[in-house]
């Protein structure tokens, strides 16, 4: 795939490195000359210097033939516009926007952005997961049909520990797609796969079934001990 990343900060850099390893064609658009030079030195000539919000820059970057545009700048309004111009001007099939201010998540959805990743939200959720009553991390929201991908860490006292996947009563339109064991091994679950304490379960669910899914996997939230 040809993937254009707008914004060569830390996330853009590491994402590009990963995508290159996965044999994708990648271009980072970065407007800071110093950052662009650094990326070029580390990753090769995969950087274009310019304002990725300018349609003229996108044109030069070959946005018209790209399969995906990912906007990762620190400004939500820039990320919104990158995705909208990519989608409506250049007909890019997939656009993903980073959201810095979690308040904007709902707004981006209403304005038609395919997929959003709230970096602040993800970090908050990871920290919150360390607290007893927040075992679920939203990983990604998909626009179509109000679906979302979440990660749930299974505590030792969860009702599903030791149960096979087929015996877990999930809310409608929810699906367990991946189980990462506490050893770090990822398994594609079948109906007979047993859930263990410490597993990280990745599931697809409806936005409004989030709480029901949480209850099904980890039980009702315990009152906080403080």
């Amino acid at each position, binding site marked *: 795939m040809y993937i254009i990343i707008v914004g060569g900060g830390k996330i853009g850099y590491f994402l590009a490195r990963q995508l290159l390893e996965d044999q994708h064609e990648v271009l980072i658009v970065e407007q800071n000359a110093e950052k662009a030079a650094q990326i070029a030195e580390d990753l090769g000539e995969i950087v274009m210097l310019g304002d990725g919000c300018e*349609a003229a820059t996108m044109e030069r970057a070959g946005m018209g033939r790209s399969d995906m545009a990912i906007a990762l700048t620190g400004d939500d309004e820039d990320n919104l516009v990158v995705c909208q111009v990519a989608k409506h001007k250049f007909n890019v099939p997939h656009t993903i926007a980073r959201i810095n201010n979690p308040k*904007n998540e709902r707004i981006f959805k209403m304005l038609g952005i395919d997929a959003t990743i709230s970096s602040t939200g993800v970090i908050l959720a990871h920290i919150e997961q360390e607290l007893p009553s927040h075992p679920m991390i939203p990983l990604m929201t998909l626009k179509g049909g109000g679906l979302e991908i979440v990660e749930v860490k299974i505590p030792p006292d969860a009702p599903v520990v030791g149960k096979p996947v087929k015996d877990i009563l999930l809310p409608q339109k929810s699906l367990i797609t991946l189980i990462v064991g506490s050893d770090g091994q990822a398994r594609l679950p079948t109906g007979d796969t047993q859930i263990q304490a410490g597993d990280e379960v990745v599931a697809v669910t409806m936005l409004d079934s989030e709480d029901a899914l949480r209850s099904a996997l980890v039980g009702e939230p315990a009152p906080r001990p403080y």
Partner: protein
Amino acid sequence: MRVIIMGCGRRGSTLAAMLDAEGHDVTVLDVDAAAFSFLPDDFGGTEIVGNGADEDSLRCAGIEQADAFVSTTRGDNRNVMAAQMAKHIFNVPRVITLVHDPIREEMYRSLGLRTVSPTLIVAHSLKEALLAEESALGGGVGGVEAAEGGNGG
């Protein structure tokens, strides 16, 4: 008419003063309180410090009751994000936004925003002025090819 104007630079403040003088209920929104010094001393509207591309600031400025919203900052992206929020989320009946980049201007116009392009307007005015000067000087024809657009204003 209850109007919210985002951005109190030269353009936003001039528009705000004009509408206020005509008796409209005007609220200006700017991230920098110092910008309100552009407003005339007898300005009777409301001044609010806040980012127009932020949902809560818009609410604070009374977007839910507004009849019109105009974004006038120098940042195209901020302008179009705020304008889309006003139009699609708060259902403000009249929404107008400045977009300096002609390509983005055309695109957002085709997506249904009412846009104004300072770049094209200024370029056309400059070209007309040049042609007028030229004909006043008695004549070379076609000496002016195009006027250069920019982001200033």
